[in-house]
């Protein structure tokens, strides 16, 4: 079977700045695979090892993203694909999903798409559902356990881990699945494998290759500001711990916080 993992590169932390043109400036912050996507890659490897076939890591972005795609290849992905075009740079999530959907259609033989529940920078979690709907495939989001992927019956059964309940759901393949953090333990690629893929250049598909044009964002950012600073706090002092604790509880009661 052919499994595709959609992955995104993100800054390791969100101490980003805002450029005058309102774009996000993450210069100087280490770039990593979006953590939730790393779990998706591991889940893809697990099922690829079981059923064989191809495991493609797909990313939409700039050349600098290739480094993280190589990491996914070193972990165990068999193929890679980069979607790159100046027209893709400013797309909102739904428009990005349209581009990825075009690539999935062009690949033609995809049985399962895995991705993280959200990126840790944008944090919307909209990509997987949007991609599923645009492809016309069923979706299983917030999956904490894949119980079975059955190429024979062409089904996937998985647990969706929501805030207070766990749903067990079966969907026909092809399907789109988004995964949460505790689904597995992503492996560390060996040095040997890292060396082996160090020079791999993923195939690149552009907007023209995909036949997508006239993508209009439905959302535009008109303002971006840092959050208002928190009012400065108060230090609870005292000669010993017992005095400080009493003072703290006094403060909490006085301010009707408890």
């Amino acid at each position, binding site marked *: 079977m052919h499994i595709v993992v959609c992955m995104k590169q993100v800054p390791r932390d969100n101490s980003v700045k805002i450029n005058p043109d309102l774009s996000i400036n993450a210069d100087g912050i280490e770039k990593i695979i979006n953590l939730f996507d790393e779990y998706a890659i591991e889940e893809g490897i697990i099922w690829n090892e079981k059923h064989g076939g191809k495991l493609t890591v797909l990313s939409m972005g700039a050349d600098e993203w290739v480094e993280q795609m190589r990491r996914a290849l070193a972990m165990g992905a068999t193929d890679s694909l980069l979607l790159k075009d100046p027209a893709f740079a400013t797309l909102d999530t*739904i428009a990005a999903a349209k581009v990825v959907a075009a690539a999935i259609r062009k690949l033609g033989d995809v049985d399962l798409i895995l991705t993280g529940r959200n990126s840790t920078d944008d944090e919307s979690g909209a990509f997987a559902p949007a991609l599923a709907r645009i492809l016309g495939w069923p979706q299983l989001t917030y999956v904490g356990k894949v119980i079975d992927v059955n190429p024979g019956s062409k089904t996937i059964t998985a647990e969706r881990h929501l805030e207070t309940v766990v749903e067990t759901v079966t969907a026909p393949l092809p399907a789109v699945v988004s995964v949460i*953090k505790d689904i597995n333990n992503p492996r560390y690629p060996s040095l040997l494998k890292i060396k082996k893929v160090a020079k791999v250049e993923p195939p690149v598909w552009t907007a023209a290759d995909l036949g997508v044009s006239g993508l209009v964002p439905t959302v535009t950012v008109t303002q971006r500001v840092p959050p208002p600073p928190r009012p400065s706090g108060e*230090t609870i002092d005292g000669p010993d711990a017992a005095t400080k604790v009493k003072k703290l509880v006094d403060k909490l009661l006085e301010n009707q916080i408890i």
Partner: protein
Amino acid sequence: MPGVLVYVEQVDGEIAAVTRELLGKGKELAAALGGSLSAVVVGSGVGAVAQKAAAYGADTVYSVDDPRLSPYTTDGHVAAVKAAVAAAQPSLILAGASFQMRDFGAALAADLDAGLVVDAIDLKADGGAITAVRPSHGGNVINTYAFAAGRPVVALVRKQSFPEAQPGAAAGSVQALALDGAEIRTTVTSVAPKTGAVNLTDAAIIVTGGRGLGDKDNYYKLIPPLAEAFGGAYGASRAIVDAGWVPYEHQVGQTGKTVSPKLYVACGVSGAIQHLAGMRTSRNIVAINKDPEAPIFRVATFGLVGDVNEVLPLLTQELKSRLGR
């Protein structure tokens, strides 16, 4: 009609608090847009909930009542709401921002080719144009969105963003809609409550422990009893979740839960930027740490420098005697 449609979430046959907020804000936005407020109730045996929604200010409540709509499926609920969208032609569709609503809302927006905002904390309608405010990047960036004209907007709203609507006389009408031609492709075979579920995002008080607790035994000795004395839930930093002390369920931060309780008590938590991302919007923050330079103190409402091993048992005791718990 350039109005507003609210997706009604239900909790044990009652209208969820976030929906009451949306009905309140939706009424205001509908007036600003020059349209009416409608609501859609989706499920099986939901007639009573539809009546209640009418009492919270919806001019029209669409009820899509069908056995196939319970439990939730994306296919079922998106099809049901699209029937209501076709009837009401709203310019703005509001729902909460829980995992299930994200599953639903993004799918609906894709189907309608609508604008989408997830985790909205404010919404405005000026001269027919809708704008939304949402945080991203762990709360380090506050974005204002505008939307393309001529398409609806789907806004998934973070709870506790708006005051709740108050019930009045049920003035609105309830209109039944059929779930026509919907193909539901997924099969839900069980819906089980999470064992030891902690809905941190709903807790009014959260007590979180970090690496400063030293080890797993000490965490369980000190943190859950303190949380209980506060009448709250207990959370954990990523470091100690990854170390296997505490299940992921309890993790607060960039790759865990984003919480905004009335009181957040961080014990032995240094306050890495990834942790702050998940709790910086808490209304009050207490930090207890022996390192006075720990970044957590920079966001603290009340900072107490001290050894958690000494402070926490005293605090638990003090709360028990003062609060009578």
